[in-house]
């Protein structure tokens, strides 16, 4: 049996957070899986859909479908982008009456997994052999929590990391306030939400705030960095990829 596994890096990771993509590849390879990176991929189009530009998202959806055709599994280090693939792509295909695209996006969506889903559900592994001797708190991002329903999968993975001291995040299920273009269109409200999240992260006593979405981490990290409290952000993939 040779599964063809593709990394869906997401545009944000590809452009701004390459270490998260590299960690995802190294982690899966360490677990004995060969992965490919289809270079035709770019963006799932979520930003366009969420900002009110579905027509501009349509070619991105088409591009996504073309880039990932033929893979048995598609793994992304992002709950939000996987959520867009599973829910928004079908809406876009329907909105523009493209029946063939509708079938294609369903096929792709059924094979697309957020990293923790792929590890726990498909590879049936929670101990990935990672070592990370630090105090870590986990922020469950809204889309992984409420769109994908990943539940405690990321926590089960983190609990098996050797040396890791997992700290509870107060009011963990509260949104960090990022929300894509919300962060600039409603910058004050976004910042008020961020201030509360930063306070919760501090209260957890953690050295690192971990999450499964680089977008939310960019926001939380921007706030942590501005408050100069020494706490840093780290993507789940980076912690799981870390070894002794």
């Amino acid at each position, binding site marked *: 049996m040779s599964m063809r596994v593709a990394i869906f890096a997401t*545009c944000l990771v*590809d*452009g*701004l*957070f*390459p*270490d*998260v*993509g*590299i960690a995802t590849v190294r982690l899966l390879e360490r677990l004995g899986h060969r992965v490919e*990176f289809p*270079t*035709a991929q*770019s963006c799932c*189009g979520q*930003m*366009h*859909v*969420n*900002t*009110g*530009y*579905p027509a*501009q*998202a349509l*070619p*991105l959806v*088409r*591009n996504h479908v073309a*880039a990932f055709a033929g893979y048995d599994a598609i793994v992304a280090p992002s709950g939000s982008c996987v959520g867009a693939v599973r*829910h*928004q792509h079908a*809406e876009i295909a329907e909105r523009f009456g493209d029946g063939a695209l509708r079938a294609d996006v369903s096929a792709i969506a059924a094979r697309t997994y957020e990293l923790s889903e792929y590890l726990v559900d498909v590879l049936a592994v929670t101990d990935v052999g990672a070592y990370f001797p630090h105090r870590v708190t986990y922020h469950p991002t*809204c*889309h992984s*929590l*409420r769109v994908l329903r990943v539940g405690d999968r990321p926590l089960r993975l983190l609990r098996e990391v050797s040396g890791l001291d997992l700290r509870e995040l107060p009011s963990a*299920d509260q*949104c960090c*306030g*990022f*929300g894509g*273009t*919300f*962060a*600039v*269109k*409603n*910058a*004050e*409200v*976004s*910042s*008020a*939400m*961020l*201030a509360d999240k930063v306070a919760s992260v501090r209260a957890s006593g953690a050295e690192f705030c971990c999450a499964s979405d680089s977008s939310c981490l960019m926001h939380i*990290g*921007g706030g942590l960095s*501005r408050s100069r409290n020494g706490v840093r952000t780290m993507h789940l993939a980076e912690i799981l990829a870390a070894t002794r």
Partner: protein
Amino acid sequence: MTFLGMPGAPTGVGQLRGDRSFPEAARDALANGQLRANLAHATTTIRGKRASVVAELPDWAELRAAGAAIKDDVLANLDSYLLQLEERVTERGGHVHWARDATEANRIVTDLVRGTGAREVVKVKSMATQEIGLNEALADAGITAVETDLAELIVQLGHDRPSHILVPAIHRNRGEIRDIFLSEMGDVDPALSDEPAALAEAARRYLRRRFLQASVAISGGNFAVAETGTLTVVESEGNGRMCLTLPRTLITVLGIEKVVPTWRDLEVFLQLLPRSSTGERMNPYTSFWTGAVEGQEFHLVLLDNGRTATLADPHGRSALRCIRCSACLNVCPVYERVGGHAYGSVYPGPIGAVLSPQLTGVTDNASLPFASTLCGACYDVCPVAIDIPTMLTHLRARVIEDKASARRVPTPERAGMGAVAWTMRNPRRWRRALRLVGPGSRALRGSALLRRLGPLAGWTRTRDLPPPPAGSFRDWWQARR
């Protein structure tokens, strides 16, 4: 997208629009520390109560699905259910009036009150009458409307506006309420404490006189059963029942989406509503009445005010499932930070962000669909499963289209979004663009001026930019192979 022949809620009447955009109004609310503390305390408390009483029902998911299905059937067959309701109410001696919009509804109610000769009416808490600005219309006709729900009374006496669907004075704390009572009630004990029991007693004495004097009452309705013509009010304080039974004339203003087909359907909603709204298993008072009782006159005003226009949009119509429980407000991180006034409409929070722009048309309330991070907490708690996040993205697209149709030159945002999509849709262009990310973000870090440009300014005021990447992920991938 416009729906020809479907009038929305008219301008200049009622309370569905603010005079400022959401981000502007939110800025003031955020600066009010007392408001934020009151809101955070109140929403956290109600949130916890709701979660525990919902968790104890093993069939909550089925109830929720049933609630959604019943409402969808109502919406698909609204014309026949409404006619059935009219027929049954009329058979039982009630009078049914049809109001196309707020202006018509206000005129109908004002004329009815005038006809009785009454100068003062008592009111049951009602969103529909606030939506149409009935109290103001009555005041213009020299008629005083007295709100008898405790929180509505606090809002009315405080010359204030409600900021929550269920708890309209959520932005007020005990001390503020005592001060309002002391200055506005007239004959209240000057030593009034801010103990809830003492405040309630002061309100009780004040209201009791109004109940006994009133000859006309005005209510809304939570549900109207088409098969029997029965109206329902669900409440906690008993003031509603006083209004519904004591005065000689009862006038009920009901949004046309409030009809349910049968009594059996109430079984579903009377479980969904109290658990979702007050976090109670059952609400203290549920009143039913059918037509007019002997010695009493009953008028039912059926209100459209943009509802038919909302019904015409297949992606927006499920907002009409809403039973006004306000669970979505209590879990909304945006609402919790800014409160209800920032939304400008009597319908605040997530449901307001989808309902208000649909009732008015998206040209008004254009900023409301953007007043959300799309975190999805509202959809999770909605007892009739309104997918508010998806509806918000749909309404955002309608706002963008509406703006584009009003101007020849694309907005900078539209141009930017188009350019990004044009770049990303082509792998070669995207690869080239990625090579600019590193140098671009290094330039931004180096220049305070650049960081203050455009949307970046909104970001950098409270957040640092991420460190510039050494290269793209695909650079690493290709170098490794």
